[in-house]
C-alpha cells in the first residue's frame, strides 16, 4: 500500500554512522542471510569479510585464491556458503563462517574471462553466473559442477532469479533483458531496455548494470543509464520498472544530469521500497530510497563514488562501498612517502529505524 513520502521518510530516515575505510577498492558488498557477516569482493583478488555484529565491524581474514577482480559475491540462502566470482572466470564456494575458510569447491574456468554477474536462486538450488564470454553458467551449489550453459550472445552484465525459482533474467550490454525458463533453458521472451545502450563512435556504452525483483516477483527493476557519450562516459541514471506479467517497462527513476552515471546496485528493503546507488563522474553519486509507484525517491543523499550496497536482512542497517573522494586526476600525484597512491574504499554505514 503506497504510503506518502513524508511518512516514509519519517519512518526510514537513515542516520549516518561514521564510515570506515578499507585500503583496497571494492566492487561488491553483501550481508549474510543472518546479518552477522558482511563480505565484499575487492579489486585485489580477495574476498574481504567482517563480523558485522561487532561495533565497529571487526575484519576477519581475507579469503584468497582468486585472480583479478572479485567482481561479484552472493550468499547462499542456507547461511553457510558464500559464492564469489572473479574477472578471470573463476567461481568459488566458501564456508564463510569458518575462521580460516578454504574453498569447498572452485571452478577456475567457469567462464572464459570476466564474470560480470552472479545470482543464487531463492531456494538455493542454482547458481547462475554471467560472463564476458557471453554465456550464463548454471552451477550446482554443492559441488560446482556445470548444470547448463545458456548462450546469451552479449556480455552478461546482470542476473536475477525470479523469486518463484522458475525463471532467470539476464541483462546485457546492448540493453536486452532475456527471460529464461529454467526448466527448458530457453528464452521465453525479451524485455526492452535498449535505451540503456549507446554505440558512440566505435564504443559500446552502457548496458543493463543491475537487476532486482520485488519480493513478490511482480516487478523487475533494471538499473543502468541513458548514455549520452562514451570516452569518459556521460549518462543519465535510469531505472526501468518492468511489469512481470505483461513485460511492459516504464521509467521508474531518472537522474537529473548526465554526470550521474550508472545505477550500479539495487536492493530491496523489507519495508517495501527499493534502495539504489548511482555513480558517474568522480565525486558524483547518490543513494536513494524509492517506493514503487512513486515518481521520485523519498530519500536521497549524495555520496561520492558509490559502487555497491548491502542491506541488513532486517533492514536496520545499510552499508555502501564507495571509492574515496578526490579519486581522480591526470598525471603524477605522489603521496607523502613519494609512493604513488592508490585509491581506497570508504564504507558508508547508515542505521535505519526499524
Amino acid at each position, binding site marked *: 500500500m503506497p504510503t506518502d513520502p513524508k511518512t516514509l521518510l519519517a519512518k526510514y530516515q537513515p542516520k549516518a554512522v561514521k564510515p570506515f575505510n578499507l585500503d583496497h577498492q571494492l566492487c561488491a558488498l553483501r550481508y549474510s542471510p543472518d546479518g552477522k557477516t558482511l563480505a565484499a569482493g575487492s579489486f585485489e583478488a580477495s574476498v574481504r569479510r567482517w563480523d558485522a555484529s561487532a561495533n565497529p565491524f571487526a575484519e576477519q581474514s581475507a579469503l584468497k585464491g582468486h585472480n583479478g*577482480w572479485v567482481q561479484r559475491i552472493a550468499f547462499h540462502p542456507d547461511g553457510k556458503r558464500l559464492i564469489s566470482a572473479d574477472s578471470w572466470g573463476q567461481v568459488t564456494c566458501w564456508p564463510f563462517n569458518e575462521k580460516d575458510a578454504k574453498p569447498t569447491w572452485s571452478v577456475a574456468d567457469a567462464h572464459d574471462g570476466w564474470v560480470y554477474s552472479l545470482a543464487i536462486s531463492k531456494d538455493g538450488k542454482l547458481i547462475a553466473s554471467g560472463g564476458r564470454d557471453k554465456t550464463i553458467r548454471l552451477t550446482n551449489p554443492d559441488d560446482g559442477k556445470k548444470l547448463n550453459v545458456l548462450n546469451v550472445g552479449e556480455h552478461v552484465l546482470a542476473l536475477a532469479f525470479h523469486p518463484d525459482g522458475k525463471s532467470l533474467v539476464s541483462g546485457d550490454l546492448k540493453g536486452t533483458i532475456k527471460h529464461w525458463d529454467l526448466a527448458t533453458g530457453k528464452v521465453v521472451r525479451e524485455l526492452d531496455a535498449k535505451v540503456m545502450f549507446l554505440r558512440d563512435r566505435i564504443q559500446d556504452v552502457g548496458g543493463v548494470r543491475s537487476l532486482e525483483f520485488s519480493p513478490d516477483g511482480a516487478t523487475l527493476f533494471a538499473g543502468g543509464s541513458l548514455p549520452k557519450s562514451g570516452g569518459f562516459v556521460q549518462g543519465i541514471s535510469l531505472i526501468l520498472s518492468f511489469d512481470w506479467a505483461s513485460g511492459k517497462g516504464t521509467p521508474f527513476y531518472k537522474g537529473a544530469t548526465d554526470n550521474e552515471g550508472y545505477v550500479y546496485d539495487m536492493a530491496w528493503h523489507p519495508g517495501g521500497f527499493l534502495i539504489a546507488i548511482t555513480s558517474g563522474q568522480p565525486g558524483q553519486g547518490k543513494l536513494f530510497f524509492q517506493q514503487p509507484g512513486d515518481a521520485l525517491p523519498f530519500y536521497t543523499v549524495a555520496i561520492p563514488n558509490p559502487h555497491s550496497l548491502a542491506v541488513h536482512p532486517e533492514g536496520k542497517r545499510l552499508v555502501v562501498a564507495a*571509492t574515496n573522494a578526490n579519486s581522480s586526476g591526470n598525471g603524477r600525484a605522489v603521496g607523502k612517502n613519494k609512493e604513488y597512491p592508490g585509491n581506497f574504499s570508504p564504507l558508508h554505514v547508515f542505521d535505519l529505524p526499524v
Partner: protein
Amino acid sequence: MLHSNLCTPIDHQLSRRQWFGTAAGAAFTVAAPAFAETVKKKHKQVLFVWLDGGMSQLESWDPKPNTQFGGPFRAIQTSVPGIHVSELLPKSAKMMHHLALVRSLCTQDNSHSAGVERIQRGDPKNRGVTYPFFGGAVSKLLGNGDSGLPPYIWIKPMNGGFIPKDGGFLGPKFGALALGDGKPPENLLRPATMSVEEDLDRNELRNLVDKKYADRRRKENIEATKYVFDMAAQLQKRRDLFEAPFAAKDQERYGTHDLGRHMLLARRMLEADVTFVKVNSYGWDTHGDNFNGQGSLVPQFDRPFAAMIEDLHERGMLDNVLVIAMSEFGRTPRINGHIGRDHWPEAWSLVTAGTGIQKGVVVGKTNDKGTFVASEEHDIGHMFHTWFKALGIDAKATEYDNEGQPLPIAHEGFKAVKELLV
C-alpha cells in the same frame, strides 16, 4: 601472389608530377607495374595509427594482472615466448613476432589539446616555429612515391578536407589530405558529360590565365593554386582507389566498424604507394568505466591492426613500411571513482614494426605495479630519432632549411633507441 584490386585494365597511366616545385613540367607515364615488382620498390612509407584520447597501456601492451592497479583482465602469451599482452589483443598477440613494443615512454604533457600536437610534432625544442606533424615531416623528407597522390593522406571519421596546418613551417603543401570517413573529397569526380579532353583543355586555358597573372606578382599564390588543382586532377585519376570494392573476406577480417573500414582503405593507400598514411580513431579517453571502455575499444583495434600486419607481411611490404600505433599518453594506474583511468604520460606504451625495426622485441619496461618506467625513459623525441633512422634518415645529420634558418628534424637532446633498430 595476391591479386591487387588496383590493377585496372584500361590505360592506367601513372603520371608522375613533382609536387614540390622542382623539375617543373617533368612528367612521364609509367605503365601499371606488375604486382611482383611493386614488392621490390625502395620508396619507404609510414602507417601511423592514432588512437586519440589515450589507450590504456595496462589494458593493452603492458598488462600487470593481479597487481594493485592491474584491473580485471588477464595477460596472454604471444607468438614470442616471454612477451605477454592483455587478453584484449588476441590477434595482435599472434603477430608479435613482427612487432616491437616500447613500454618505457615517459612524456611531458598530460593534456589532450597540447599533448596530441606535441606528440605528433615530436615535441622538439622550441625554436619559435611550428613544427610539422610527423606526416608532414616524412612527406618532406621522403618525398612522393609513384602514387601520384598527395604524400600525406589521413583517413579519419567525420569530416575531411585538406589540412594545411599539419605542415607547420614546411608550408601548407605538407599538410594532410583528410578523407572524412574514408570517403573521397566532395566533387571529386568530373561529371560524366565532360570528356577527359575537355577537362584538360579548360585547365590548360586556366593555367595560361594564371601564368600571365603571376608574371609580375608574388609567386606563392599561383604555386599554391596550381598545387591544389594538380592534386584534384591526380585524385580524379586515382578514383579507383575510392570506387573499387573491397573483397568480402578482407572486410570480414578487418571488421566493418569505422576503424576496420578505415584500416582497409589505408592498406589500399599504402599499396598505391602513398608515402604517409595516418588513420585516426577517437574516443579512447576512458576516464570513466575504463574497463568496459577499453574492453570494447581495444579488440576493435586489435582486429584490423593484426590483419594489417599480416597483410603487409604477406605482401613483403613490412620491408618498406614503418608501422606505428600510439596515443598521446597512457592511462593512470590508479583507478578513479568512476571506475576509470585518467591521463598518464609517466609510463606508457606504443607498438611499432616494419622497415628498420627489430622484430619480436620489447624495449624498456615499467616496474611491477606499472606505475613508472623502471628502465631508461624514452620521450617522443627518442622515437622520432628512431623512426627517422628506420626510414633511412639520420636525424643528427639532417636539417630542415626554414628560409635560411636551419632546424633539427628531431629534438636534438635525444637520440635513436638502438635496441629498437635493426
